[in-house]
C-alpha cells in the first residue's frame, strides 16, 4: 500500500490510518526506505519545494521531500551551498531522507556535518500530532531540540514535513591535491599530521590503502598559494584543477556502485587499521578518517558486527542499524512520541 500525501493534513491522516508506516522520498537508501511486512509506504515525494529562503540570513526552509539537487540549484544562484555536503544528491536524495539517515559527504571536513546545519523541524509524531523543534535562526536554545533528535533516527519519532537549514557562502575557487604514500601505515601517519594543522581543508579523504585527497577552497589567489604550501608540506602530488566532477562522483558514492551492500561506519584514525583488516570492498574514509563509506557483501557486514563496530547499512539488508540505540534513553523518548510504534525502530 502506497500513500502519497500532498500536505501536512494528509500526512496526519495517513499516520492515523495505518498501524505501521515507513517513509520514502528519493529511495536512494533502500535499506532504510523499503517497507517491511505489514508496513504502509508513505511516499513523501509530493511534499516538495522551498518554502522560505533568505540568502542574507544563511537560512532556508523546505518540505522534507525536496530533492537536494533542487535546493542546491537555488542556493547556487546566490553563491551559497550546503556545507555538510549531503551524499547521493545526484541520485535523487532528498532533505528528509538525508536527515533520517544522518548522512554527510566529503565537504563535512571544513565546517561540520548534517547535525551542525539542521536548525529546525516540523514533524508529525506517531499520534498524528504536529510538533516543531528548533527554529529558523542560526542560533537558538529554546525548548527541547527535536531537530537534533531526528538526525539519524531513521524516522523513528515521526514523519518530517518541513526542515530548516543553515547554509554558507560557497568557496569561490577550489583545487584538489592527490598524494600517494608507500602503504597504509605511511598514509595514516600523514592523515594524522594533517588533521592537526590549521589548513581549513574542504575535504580530507583516505582511499585505502595509501592515497590521500585534499581539497582546498577560497579566493582564487589564496587557493593557489595554499596549494603551493601544501605541496611543500607533502612533497609531490597530482593536482586536479577542475575538481568538481570528481567530488560529485565521490559524493554520489559512485565507488559503491556494483557492491551489493553499502555501509556507513563512524570511524576515527586509530580504528582504521582494524577496519582495514575486515573483508570490505571498495571504500573511502571521509573527513580525516571520521567516517567510512564501504561497499561489501554479507561477509563484511558479519565481520563489522562481530568486531562490535557501530554501523548503518544504506543498501542490501533488512536490519540496517547496529547496535540498536541505548534503550534506557531511547525507549522513553520513543514512547513519548510514537507510543504505538507506527514508525521504524519500534
Amino acid at each position, binding site marked *: 500500500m502506497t500513500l502519497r500525501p500532498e500536505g501536512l493534513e494528509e500526512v496526519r491522516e495517513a499516520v492515523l490510518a495505518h498501524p505501521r508506516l515507513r517513509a520514502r522520498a528519493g529511495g536512494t537508501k533502500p535499506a532504510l526506505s523499503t517497507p517491511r511486512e505489514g508496513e504502509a509506504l508513505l511516499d513523501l515525494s509530493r511534499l516538495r519545494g522551498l518554502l522560505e529562503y533568505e540568502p*542574507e540570513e*544563511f*537560512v532556508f526552509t523546505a518540505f522534507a521531500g525536496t530533492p537536494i539537487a533542487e535546493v542546491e540549484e537555488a542556493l547556487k544562484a546566490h*553563491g551559497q551551498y550546503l556545507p555538510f555536503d549531503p551524499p547521493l544528491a545526484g541520485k535523487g536524495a532528498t532533505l528528509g531522507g538525508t536527515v533520517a539517515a*544522518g548522512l554527510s559527504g566529503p565537504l563535512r571536513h571544513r565546517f*561540520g*556535518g548534517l*547535525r*551542525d546545519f539542521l536548525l529546525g523541524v516540523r514533524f508529525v*509524531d506517531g499520534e498524528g*500530532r504536529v*510538533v516543531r523543534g528548533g*527554529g*529558523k*535562526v*542560526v*542560533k*537558538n*536554545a*529554546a*525548548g*527541547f*531540540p*527535536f531537530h*537534533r*533528535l*531526528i*538526525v*539519524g*533516527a531513521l524516522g523513528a519519532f515521526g514523519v518530517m514535513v518541513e526542515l530548516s537549514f543553515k547554509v554558507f*557562502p560557497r568557496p569561490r575557487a577550489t583545487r584538489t591535491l592527490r598524494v600517494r604514500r608507500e602503504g597504509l601505515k605511511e598514509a595514516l601517519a600523514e592523515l594524522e599530521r594533517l588533521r*592537526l*594543522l*590549521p589548513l*581549513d581543508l574542504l575535504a580530507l579523504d583516505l582511499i585505502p590503502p595509501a592515497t590521500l585527497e585534499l581539497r582546498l577552497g*577560497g*579566493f582564487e*589567489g*589564496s587557493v593557489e*598559494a*595554499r596549494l603551493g604550501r601544501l605541496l611543500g608540506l607533502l612533497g609531490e602530488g597530482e593536482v586536479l584543477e577542475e575538481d568538481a566532477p570528481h567530488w560529485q562522483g565521490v559524493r554520489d558514492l559512485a565507488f559503491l556502485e556494483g557492491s551489493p551492500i553499502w555501509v*556507513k561506519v*563512524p*570511524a*576515527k584514525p*586509530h580504528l582504521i587499521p582494524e577496519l582495514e583488516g575486515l573483508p570490505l570492498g571498495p571504500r573511502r574514509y571521509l*573527513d580525516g578518517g*571520521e567516517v567510512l563509506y564501504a561497499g561489501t557483501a554479507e561477509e563484511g557486514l558479519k565481520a563489522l558486527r562481530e568486531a562490535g563496530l*557501530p*554501523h*548503518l547499512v544504506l543498501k542490501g539488508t533488512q536490519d540496517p542499524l547496529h*547496535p540498536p540505540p*541505548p534503550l534506557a*534513553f*531511547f525507549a*522513553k*523518548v520513543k514512547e*513519548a*512520541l510514537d507510543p504505538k510504534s507506527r514508525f521504524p*525502530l519500534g
Partner: protein
Amino acid sequence: MGFLEELKALLPGRVLTHEAELAPYESDALTAYRKRPLAVALPERKEEVVEAVRLCHHHGVPFVARGSGTSLSGGSLPVEGGIVLALNRMNRILKLDPKARIAVVEPGVVNLEVSRQAAPFGLYYAPDPSSQPVSTLGGNVAFNSGGAHCLKYGMTANHVLGLELVTPRGEVVRLGGESLEGAGPDLHGFFVGTEGLLGVAVEITLRLLPKPEAYHTVLAAYPSLEAAGEAVSRVIRAGLLPGAMEIMDRLSIEAAEKAVGAGYPRVEGLLIVELEGPKEEVAAEAEVLHRVLAESGALEVRVARGEAERQAIWKGRKAAFSAVGRLSPDYLVQDGVVPRSRLGEALREIGRLSEAYGLRVANVFHAGDGNLHPLVLYDGKKPGELERAEALAGEILRLCVRLGGSITGEHGVGVEKKAYLREMFSEADVEAMERVKARLDPKGLANRGKVFDPRVEVAR
C-alpha cells in the same frame, strides 16, 4: 534511615545543611531569584552522582545539578525541599587525545581549561560563552551555551560527540561516541540544551579544532547602532563568513571602558569583526572586508596589530555584562534572537520600549547570528522597578518571536523565560516536550520548575 542520613552516609562530610553553608547556593547569576535547598551534596566521582540521583529517585527528592552557577536564566536555581548536586569537584580532564582531536571531561571542568590544556597541541575548544573563565562544561551542555563564534562554528551541541549520563531514574547510559559521525539517532545532540531536565551528564566527550593560523580583527565605529547593523548586512552580502561579528552601543562601550579600558572609540555603535583562517585566505578576505567597511559610513576603522591588541578588543567585549553592573545597581540580561536582517528594526523597537518604560537598556550583541543581549538596567530597591524591568524584558522577547526569531539564543529558558516558551512554541510542541520529560522523569525530580510553566505542567 531517612533521605539526608543516607545521603550523608554516601558522601561523608560532603553534605552541607547549615544555613551559612547553603547561602552561596541559593541563587545563580539570575540574582533576582533565590531559593534555599534542603542540602547541597558535593560528589567527587561519577559513581557518587549516580548513587545520589538513585537516592533522590527512591525518596522522591528533587535535585538540581550545578557547576559554577553562572546561569543567566536561573537554570540552577534550587528547589525548596530538594538538593543541589554541586559538581565543581568533578573537575578532571579524563583524556585529552590530540590525534583523535577529542577531550573527555567531567562536568565540573571549566570551559576555558579545555582550550588551555589543548593549546600545546595547536588545538582548542570552540564554544566561548563570555562566562568561559568560570562556567563549567556540565552547565554548558545542559544549556547549549554559545558565544561569539556561533554563526561559523555552532553552539555547544555541535561540539559534543558523546555523553555518559545518569537519567532521573538513576540509570546510567552512554550516548554518542568519539567520532564526528554516528549511527542511529543523535541522542547526545538532543540531550544538549534540555537544561538538566532529562538527567545529569557525568562524562562529556568534546571535539577539538585546530587553532586558526591567522586572525584579522577590526573595530569599526558608527554614528548610530543601525549603521553598525547595516554594516553587518553588507559584510554578509559580500559573501564573507567572519568568525565573529559583535556590536556594542554607547552605554555598553562606556561601561566596558570604565571596567577594563579597552580603548574603544566613544560612539553610538561599535562593530567588531574578526576574520580567521589560513593567512592567505584571511588576507584576501580582509581586502574585501575593508572595501565593504569603507563604503559603510564608518567614522573610524581600526585593525588590531598583533595578539595583544586583539585580546584588548575582546577583553572589553567579554567584560561588557559585568561592566554594566557599574552603571546600575541591578540589571536583567536578555538573550533573544532575530533574523540578522531585522536587527535594525529590533534595535529601534527596543529603544522605543526603553523610553516608554523609563528604564535604560544597554545593547551588546552577537550581530553575526542575530543574538541580542539587551541589558535592562533597574534598581531593585525601588518598589515596582524589578517588575517593570521584567515586563520590558518580556516585551523584547515577544518582539523577537514576532520578527521570526527565538526567545533565547544561548542562555536557555530556565525559570526566567518559562512564561514565554508558549510565545514561541505551540501548545502541541510544548506538550511533546513535556511528554518526553514525563517518560524519562516520571517523578519530575530533575531540575524541577525549569523550562515549563508550572501553571500548566502536569504529568501526561
